[in-house]
């Protein structure tokens, strides 16, 4: 499991230089505008905007392909099922297997929408350090409790993943392996109990660590004035002279996004 997000967050590109708050608003608006798209002739435009943004972000293609591997399974499911199940107009038939027009169109729509939205999402994540992102969300009104929780859980994600890997290795070294092949569809009770203990140990370890973390944080003054970890930066105002590019990019995104929504409604 590859957890690190910030791998390419420090390249220099127009999208990387884009100020975080306006980038967040701009790209999220665009994502939602894409979710509105239902007509097929808007799809090429949608894919084009996505591709242009990806090229502008200078993220390597391998970044996207690696991250698309997991959601790709879902896509495969849609492509394999929908054209055969959904719709009435039969395009092609072979025995019980029928290819239906409505299903094919729905598949194309879902696939394109999915790819565009996911890619824009990864552009947002790939070009912004996670701390900046949480800070931006905080200054846009994310409750402090959520921001603190996000920050802390992201911080400990890696350690807990290591914990689990170590424990699983330990289990294997002591001879645990998935063996039951006899009872089809019935999980082995003993195995289930061991995995429950494994999960439980993981939770107990995290809990005990959290108590140490809390004490350390309290010693440094956390919670004294119910102050959150991240101070919200001053209200959302951008300085024109320094951030002109960011504002223009934001306006451009809002324009493109409303273009898609208007084209869809009209």
């Amino acid at each position, binding site marked *: 499991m590859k957890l690190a997000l910030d791998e390419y967050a420090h390249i220099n590109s127009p999208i990387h230089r884009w100020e975080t708050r306006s980038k967040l608003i701009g790209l999220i608006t665009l994502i939602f505008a894409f*979710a509105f798209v239902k007509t097929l002739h808007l799809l090429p435009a949608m894919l084009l905007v996505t591709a242009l943004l990806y090229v502008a972000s200078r993220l390597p293609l391998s970044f996207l392909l690696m991250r698309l591997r997991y959601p790709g399974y879902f896509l495969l499911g849609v492509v394999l099922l929908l054209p055969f199940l959904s719709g009435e107009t039969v395009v092609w038939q072979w025995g019980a297997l029928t290819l239906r027009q409505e*299903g094919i169109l729905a598949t194309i729509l879902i696939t394109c929408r999915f790819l565009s*939205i996911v890619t824009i999402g990864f552009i947002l994540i790939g070009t912004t350090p996670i701390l900046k992102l949480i800070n931006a969300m905080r200054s846009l009104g994310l409750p402090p409790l959520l921001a603190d929780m996000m920050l*802390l859980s992201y911080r400990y994600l890696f350690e807990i993943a290591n914990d689990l890997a170590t424990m699983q290795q330990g289990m294997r070294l002591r001879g645990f392996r998935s063996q039951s092949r006899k009872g089809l569809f019935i999980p082995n009770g003993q*195995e289930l109990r061991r995995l429950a203990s494994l999960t439980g140990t993981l939770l107990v370890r995290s809990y005990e660590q959290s108590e140490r973390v809390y004490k350390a944080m309290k010693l440094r003054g956390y919670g004294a004035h119910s102050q959150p970890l991240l101070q919200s930066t001053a209200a959302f105002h951008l300085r024109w002279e320094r951030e002109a590019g960011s504002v223009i990019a934001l306006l451009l995104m809002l324009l493109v996004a409303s273009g898609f929504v208007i084209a869809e409604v009209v």
Partner: protein
Amino acid sequence: MHIPDGILPAQVCIGGYAVTGLATWYSLRHINRKKDPTADIPKASLLTAAFFIASSIHIPIPPASVHLVLNGLLGTVLGYYAFPAILIGLVFQAIILGHGGLTTLGVNAAMMGIPALVAYHIFQLRDRFGRRLNDRWFVGIFSFLAGAVGLGLAAIVFFILVITTIPSGFDVDVERAAIIGLSLAHIPLMLIEGTFTALLALFLLRVKPALLNIKSEG
């Protein structure tokens, strides 16, 4: 059990965000009523991370394997922190693994988080049955129910959303039959999730009752 981007129409996504916003507000209101709301933040955060990692553990069911949702367990362990925890866990699953999605974040959080709150209340119900709080049977039975109901509710919402919104030529009756059929097919998974939750709750009761908000015996 995650709805990915691109499947649901924007209206449903926005509706999901509205419901999630409401549920978050409700949870935060309960959390802020505590004497020191920040005291439990590290615990909730680390357990959020632990649940995120734990959901990658596969349970072998020959010939395949499933991975658990654990939302019922989250509810029993974290109480009202379960909703923010699930919301954050889903954000990370969406941005790190590409599992779920950003537009469907609201829908997914509501789908798994509200059943987690229900599971929490189910687990708390055992207080009504006599005073022997630490009775292993009560903990076992109610955590089983919490786990099973948590997953079951999420599965029902999932199928209703996916089947009614995917553009298809099916009529209403076929869709309803599909929803009922697929939900029934999830009963074995509910049993497994419930059993796993119960085993885990009993483990925690033995090893670290504080995690279940139960004072340790003696």
